[in-house]
C-alpha cells in the first residue's frame, strides 16, 4: 500500500505566484489525491482562481517537509516548497485542476482511488498551485495530500 504524506503552504495569493509546489524525483511517481484551500484573515467576499499546473523546474521557495500520515512511514522522497521567490517553470497547456475560490468557504477536492493526479518520475518535475486571478489578495493556506 502506498505511503501517504501531507504538505501545507501559506502565502499571499498575489497574481501569477505559486503558493505551494510538490516536486518529484527520478525514483518515484507521487500521486496527489487531495487538495484544500483555506483563507486566513478577516473573511471577505474576495475571489480568486488558482490552477494546479505541471512544472519542470523547482524555482526558489521556502522548503516544506512532507509529513507522513502514518507515523511509522519513512521520510517522503518527493520534496515541496511554498512562498516562491523565484517561480518554477510551468508547462504550457498542462493545467491539471482549476480552483475557483471565494475567500469565505474552504475548498476541498478529492480524487477517487486510482484517479489521482500523477507526477512523472523525473527530477525537478512536479506541480504547483499557481494564482491566475485575484480580486483582492489575502493570505491563503493550501494543503496537498499525496502518496508515493
Amino acid at each position, binding site marked *: 500500500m502506498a505511503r501517504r504524506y501531507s504538505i501545507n503552504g501559506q502565502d499571499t495569493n498575489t497574481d501569477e505566484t505559486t503558493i505551494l509546489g510538490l516536486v518529484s524525483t527520478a525514483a518515484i511517481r507521487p500521486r496527489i489525491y487531495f487538495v484544500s484551500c483555506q483563507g486566513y484573515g478577516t473573511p471577505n467576499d474576495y475571489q480568486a482562481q488558482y490552477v494546479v499546473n505541471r512544472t519542470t523546474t523547482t524555482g526558489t521557495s521556502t522548503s516544506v517537509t512532507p509529513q507522513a500520515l502514518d507515523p511509522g512511514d519513512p521520510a517522503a522522497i518527493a520534496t515541496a516548497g511554498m512562498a516562491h521567490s523565484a517561480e518554477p517553470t510551468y508547462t504550457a497547456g498542462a493545467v491539471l485542476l482549476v480552483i475557483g475560490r471565494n475567500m469565505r468557504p474552504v475548498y476541498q477536492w478529492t480524487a477517487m482511488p486510482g484517479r489521482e493526479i500523477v507526477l*512523472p518520475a523525473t527530477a525537478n518535475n512536479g506541480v504547483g498551485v499557481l494564482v491566475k486571478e485575484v480580486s483582492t489578495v489575502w493570505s491563503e493556506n493550501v494543503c496537498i495530500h499525496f502518496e508515493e
Partner: protein
Amino acid sequence: MREDGYILNDLGNPVADTLQCAHCGGHFEVKPGSGKRRGWCLKCSAPLCGQAGCMVCVPMERMLERIEAAARK
C-alpha cells in the same frame, strides 16, 4: 458516468464532481450548459479535458513515460 473526483463544501458535502482527462490526467468539473468544450477519446474510451494538447491520443501513462525518457537522455 462515474465521477473521478469530487469537490466538497465547508460541511463536507459534495458540491461538484470532476472527471479525469485520459490524456493529461488533469481533473475538470462537469458543468452542463457552461459552454466549455470537452472531448471524448474513442481509443481510450474516456473523457478529455478539451485542452488543445489532449486532442491527440497520447494516454496519460504514455505521456509520463515520454517525460521520464526525455529526462534520462
